[in-house]
Structure formats: C-alpha cells, structure tokens
C-alpha cells in the first residue's frame, strides 16, 4: 500500500490488464483502512476466503458501504491485486435486516462468521462450506432461535472440515455408552465410556440425554429447526462441549463467544 510498494509497481515488468472477476461473497470481517477505506475478509464460493480493499467504503453514499458490512451476502466485482484484491462494484443480494435488528441474532451471527474465518485458509475454495454458512445465515434471518441455528451450523461446519465430534459410540471401545451420564473428551474428539480404561483428564461430563438432541439437530431439515425446543440444561452442555472441542482444535477461544455469554443475562 505504501511508498515501498508503489516503487515495485512501477517496475518495467510487463503486466497484462488486472484480472477482474465476479464472486458470490459473504463478508466475514472488515477493518478500517486510512480515512475512508476498508479492508474486508470475504468468503467466496469460487475462490475461498480472501482479502479485498473497498476504497471509499466509509463515505455515506458509497455504493460499497453496505456491501462491505459483515454478515452481508453479495455479488462482488473484484480485480486481482498483489496482496489484496480490489473491490470495484457490489450488488447486495441479502443484507439480513432481521438479524441486524436482533442483538442475540447478531451475537450468534458474528460467532458463525468468526468460526468460519478462524477455520478456513485463504484461497482454498470449499463451495459446500460456503453454502452451509449462507444457509445458516438465511435460517437465522427466518427467525429461528439463534443459539439452535449456531449449534446446527457448528455441527455441519465441523463435519465438512473433518472435525466432527464423535457422539454415537465410545471413541475408544466403540460400544454404546451405558445409560446415565457420558463424558466427552475434547482431545479425543468424542465421548468415552466409564468401562474402558482411564478417563482422560480433559473429560466434560453431561447427561446422556444430550445425544438424542445432537442427533436430532444433525439430521434436522432446516425448516424444522424452528419447531425444535432444547431445554436450558441441554443448551448449556452442548455449548460447553462444542466450545472445548473447538478450543482444542483452534488452540484459542473465539472472541465473539464472550459477547454471547454477556447478553445471556438478558434472557
């Protein structure tokens, strides 16, 4: 961006015209750049995750302002740059107004975006993952409970990346756990039973009833999510198990989870 970069740009190397392309994109993140510009991190269906500069996006009246907002789905016109691509035009497909008027939905929506951003590498396309995120955004927009939507998304998302937590049988012995309580080990990525050796030190205990809820959630048709009711205890246990499972894989927590915990006091 700075002076050193422009020196290189004026070199005598022949460059054909900048490659321009359009991409269906979800804005995952944005940061302000200088006085008027923004850098956005987008997930595209075709090119995977990438960074782009939206010049003048912070000025009112800029056609890029709304399109560079996180949690927005749009058709973006980009040109390939050296480090970051440049956003030249944008067409908003969906800005998810219902989500943005609901603090709890925003909190879980941001969480889904951060999860996606943290687990994906740049320019490593995964169309299925893109579709999964976009579907979850529409599910949230339709008024489905934000927490259930986020858990539904998490399970699908982790499955797509090969990090799906194993709940059906004991990850060590393969047997169905006995009735009562079950233990989930984040390091092993699944449940462990009492009867097959030493219990891992990181195990999280939960009532075994949670398994039927997880299976129902995994198999649910998106339109059925609205009717699903999860008791408070199940929600808490499931959130806790997935939090530790994700923490073990990412080696850190998701920042947006703090805000979710904070606004829980309003419930």
């Amino acid at each position, binding site marked *: 961006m700075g*002076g050193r970069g422009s020196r290189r740009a004026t070199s005598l190397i022949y460059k054909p015209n900048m490659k321009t392309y359009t991409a269906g994109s979800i804005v995952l993140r944005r940061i302000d750049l200088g006085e008027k510009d923004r850098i956005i991190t987008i997930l595209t269906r075709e090119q995977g995750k990438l960074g782009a500069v939206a010049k003048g*996006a912070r000025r009112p009246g800029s056609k890029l302002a709304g399109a560079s907002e996180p949690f927005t789905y749009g058709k973006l016109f980009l040109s390939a740059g050296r480090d970051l691509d440049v956003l030249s035009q944008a067409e908003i497909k969906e800005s998810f107004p219902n989500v943005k008027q609901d603090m709890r939905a925003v909190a879980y929506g941001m969480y889904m975006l951060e999860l996606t951003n943290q687990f994906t590498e740049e320019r490593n396309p995964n169309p299925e993952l893109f579709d999964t995120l976009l579907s979850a955004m529409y599910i949230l927009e339709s008024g489905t409970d934000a927490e259930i939507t986020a858990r539904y998304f998490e399970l699908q998302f982790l499955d797509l990346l090969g990090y799906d937590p194993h709940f059906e049988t004991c990850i060590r012995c393969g047997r169905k756990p006995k009735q009562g309580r079950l233990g989930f080990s984040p390091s092993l990525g699944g449940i462990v039973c009492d009867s097959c050796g030493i219990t891992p030190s990181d195990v999280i205990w939960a009532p075994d009833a949670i398994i039927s809820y997880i299976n129902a959630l995994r198999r649910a048709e998106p339109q059925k999510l609205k009717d699903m009711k999860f008791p408070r205890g199940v929600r808490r246990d499931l959130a806790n198990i997935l939090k530790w499972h994700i923490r073990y894989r990412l080696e850190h927590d998701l920042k947006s989870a703090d805000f979710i915990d904070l606004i829980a006091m309003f419930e």
Partner: protein
Amino acid sequence: MAGEDIRQLFVCTRLWKIIMHYAKPLAKLVGEFEKLPGIGPKSAQRLAFHILRISEDEAKALADAVLNVKLYIKLCPVCYNYTDQDCCEICSDAKRDRSLVCVVSEPRDVVAMEKTNEFRGLFHVLGGVISPMDGVGPDMLKIRELLARVGDGEITEVLLATNPTIEGDTTAMYIARTLKERGFEGRISRIAHGMPVGSDMDYADQATLIQALQWRRDI
C-alpha cells in the same frame, strides 16, 4: 532511514553539506512521521524536509502544540469528550438541554453533530463500539459511566447516535436493552433516517445528519 537515501533526495549539494551534520536527527524525524496514520515513507520525508525549511519559531510552535495536546488535553469527567478544562465547554454550558443526551462512539462525532447547529442537548462519548469479533465488549467502553449519568434522574431522553454499522447498531441495542433493564423510563431513540448502512457518521454531510436527527425513532 539510511543517509544514502536522504542524499538521493538532495540534489542541492550545499544544502546537503549542512544536513550532513544533522543526518541522525533528520532520520529520527522522518522515522517519527512514518509512525503516524496514513503517512508513508515518502510523505514522512516530505514533511521532515518541510520542517527543515520553516523558521525556528514555527518549528517551536509545532513542537509546543504537539506537547501541549499531551499535557493539557484530557477526557471530560462527565461526557468523556476531549477537553482542556475540568469540565468540557458543552457540559458546562447552562443553555444546553440537560434532559437530552446524545451517545456517540468517538469525539469526532461530537464535532459532526455540533456542526449541524441543531442539537441542543449534551453528549456522551463511548470511546468505541462493541465489536464482538475484535474482543471489544461493553466493559471496554464508557457504558457503565453512561448508566450512572442516566441514573441521576435529570436525563429524560437518550439518543443513540452510533454509526449505522453492524457494530454501531449492536452497541445501540445493547445500551437500549441495558437502560430498560435498569428501569429507565424516559425515551430511548436511535438516529436513523438518511444514514446509509455501513457509513461513518462524521463523513455525513450536514443535511443528512440534520435529517437523521429529526427522524430519530424509538428503539
């Protein structure tokens, strides 16, 4: 920055001889300018050489201005806007409507609102917006201080004028919810109309901002 680079910029050899002795201070100044937001190496050099050309008095005035900002500017203990007094001019102005407080994220938004000449209430500067993905939570902003102010009972309307972005809206929703939770019975309004989604408040033209003020809605 190496002396060689500076030399390249100085075609005038006579001037170069003078600068030779000061190469280190000059390099230091260029380095300091480069740290400023929006200033690249080229601009930093240009500024440094400009300082070389101005008189000693002008240079001293600039240096004093920089230092005085650090020495005398502090946050108003009431509204958290910048001030050089114990209490800022707006907060100590008897003619302002003390029942109405406008909540903004940055001091520069106060300037934008003041330019409209339409708003006669007081301000409260949060010092940012809630940004969950960046780990900026309500406790890092002056929200607790706002609640305390409102709790004093004089305020009957809280106008939430954070940017119309996802973070600005979330901050407004969080404050509105918290105020209601604390039993605030006055009006809670949100600056709205005419402000395009995703834009920065302080870049809005006056007409847009005046319209946004008049069309505020309850939240």
